């Protein structure tokens, strides 16, 4: 390593200070929301948004939780995102097996089709989907949202996984084929176990992306007991009954699961964030 050049000390501290101030600005909404979610309305009006809470006032959070039945919203989000993540990974694996390993004819065009589908705005699909789902009696059901997002996420997954499986070591498959393994066996016993790291990254991404979705769930999940967390919070905006501290409690309830997922999946996410960049 080269020797450190002498640096003017004040300069480097100034750079650090500037970057630290920016970090505080970026995270201040999180801090302020958390601070005020634990205050009583009276405390808020006397002390303002920056005073520290005198104790842990939980009524705002509890009231909001009960009023919107937040546990149910969490469960809906969990169920939809989990089902989509699993379904989309399965569908991506099947497609990518045929395209990346099977190299079926016309695969380039099929991949372009998936790529285009992935960039299409949901606005250009929403009304027919809404109409068709009403026709078949799936409107306002979690199943409709699960089906739609399984396909949307799998369009991306197919695109990504096909190029990964295109690099799959041929010798292993040939050895398996000589041993008499059919295509299903080769897929389930060899391709899937070996690609497990990539599949788990995809699984987590699909889960979080689906959790974060707003537009289609807003349209398809109109009844209260089907709503997801972002939809319930987004729709409740501007309700007259919400006071300052309850609003901040509602924001906190939206933040907590998102930050929790980030912390749980942090290592996979930072490894795969460049993967997600293609989306």
């Amino acid at each position, binding site marked *: 390593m*080269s020797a450190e050049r002498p640096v003017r000390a004040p300069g*480097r501290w100034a*750079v*650090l200070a500037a*970057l630290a101030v920016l*970090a*505080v600005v*970026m*995270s201040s*909404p*999180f801090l302020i929301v958390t601070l005020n979610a634990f205050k009583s309305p009276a405390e808020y009006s006397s002390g*303002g*948004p920056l005073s520290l809470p005198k104790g842990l006032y939980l009524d705002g959070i509890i009231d909001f939780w009960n009023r919107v039945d937040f546990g149910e919203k969490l469960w809906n989000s969990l169920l939809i995102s989990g089902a989509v993540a699993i379904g989309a990974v399965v569908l991506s694996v*099947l*497609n990518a*097996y*045929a*395209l990346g390993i099977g190299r079926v004819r016309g695969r380039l065009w*099929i991949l372009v089709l998936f790529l285009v589908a992935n*960039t*299409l*705005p949901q*606005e*250009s*699909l*929403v*009304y*027919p*989907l*809404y*109409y*068709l789902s009403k026709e078949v009696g799936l409107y306002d059901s979690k199943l409709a949202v699960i*089906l739609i997002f*399984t*396909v949307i996420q799998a369009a991306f997954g*197919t695109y990504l996984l096909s190029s990964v499986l295109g690099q799959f070591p041929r010798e292993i498959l*040939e050895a398996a084929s000589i041993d008499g393994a*059919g*295509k299903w066996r*080769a*897929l389930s016993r060899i391709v899937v176990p070996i690609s497990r790291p990539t599949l788990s990254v995809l699984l987590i991404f699909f889960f979080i992306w689906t*959790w*974060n979705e*707003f*537009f289609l769930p807003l349209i398809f999940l109109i009844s209260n007991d089907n709503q997801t967390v*972002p939809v319930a919070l987004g729709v409740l*905006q501007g309700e007259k009954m919400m006071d300052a501290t309850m*609003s901040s409690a*509602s924001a906190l309830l*939206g*933040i907590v699961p*998102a*930050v929790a*997922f*980030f912390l749980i999946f942090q290592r996979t996410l*930072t490894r795969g*964030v*460049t993967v997600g*960049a*293609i989306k």
Partner: protein
Amino acid sequence: MAPSPVRPRGRGGYWLFLIPGFVLFTVVIVVPFVMNVATSFTRWSGVGTPTWIGFGNYTKLFEDERFWTSFEHNAALIVAMAVVPTVIGLVLSAALFDYIGKKFGPRTASALRAAYYLPQVLPVAVAGVVWNWMLHPSYGAVNAIFGTKVNWLGDPGLALATVMAIMVWFQLGYPVVIFMAGLQRADPALHEAAEIDGASWWRRFWHITIPQIRPEIFVVLLTCTIAALKVFGPIFVLTRGGPGNATMVPSYFSYLNFFEKANVGYGSAIATVLALIIVVVTFLFLRVQERDS
């Protein structure tokens, strides 16, 4: 090793694995997309039979001031969601990577990076909920902190600028993380050589750092531009396109026509134009990137 002709029982059978994907893809994407394009040539309220009116919706669209305004706002959001975060993200990631990382250690750099990335973990609708509360005209924290009485989202002259600022806050962490990952791939020897030759930090940033992470810059600009063209959640939660049309965007404009005004044909035309623009933008980006490498 000679290429072996042996494959798991021939080639043709792989088609079978595409069947579930093909069926679902057709039902969920191809058919609805074609239906949407077809509907854009009709007048339809959502019930009854659509009336064929040819290009009627499109000619109306090009004369509709709201439509053009909504695209101007889209351009503003591309600045806020793609251009500004990319520029600031470049400076921040370079500063974190080869200044803070070297002089204060990688732990300090990654702690700062985490703070910048934090808004990105939120669902964009929840980010809107947070800022709605922060900017509330009567009890919001921002007015209380600065002692102002500004109606950030309700003032037609301010609303778009406020939404833009929120989107910069939301997007910034993404380029920082992507660019820092790109810098790790870059060759440090170039930097050290330039440093020995006495090149200033800014010169090294401009002539070495930026060329090295060109692919990452392309990806960030493309994905953020598409995200800006599609933006719906923050507009729905923060302003509903208002006040007046001050923050109207095409996606929200089509939503209004679909679900509130029952102008399904017109909404479909807006959505079709939006889809076309996004596909063309994607194609152009990929072309430029291909020529570049």
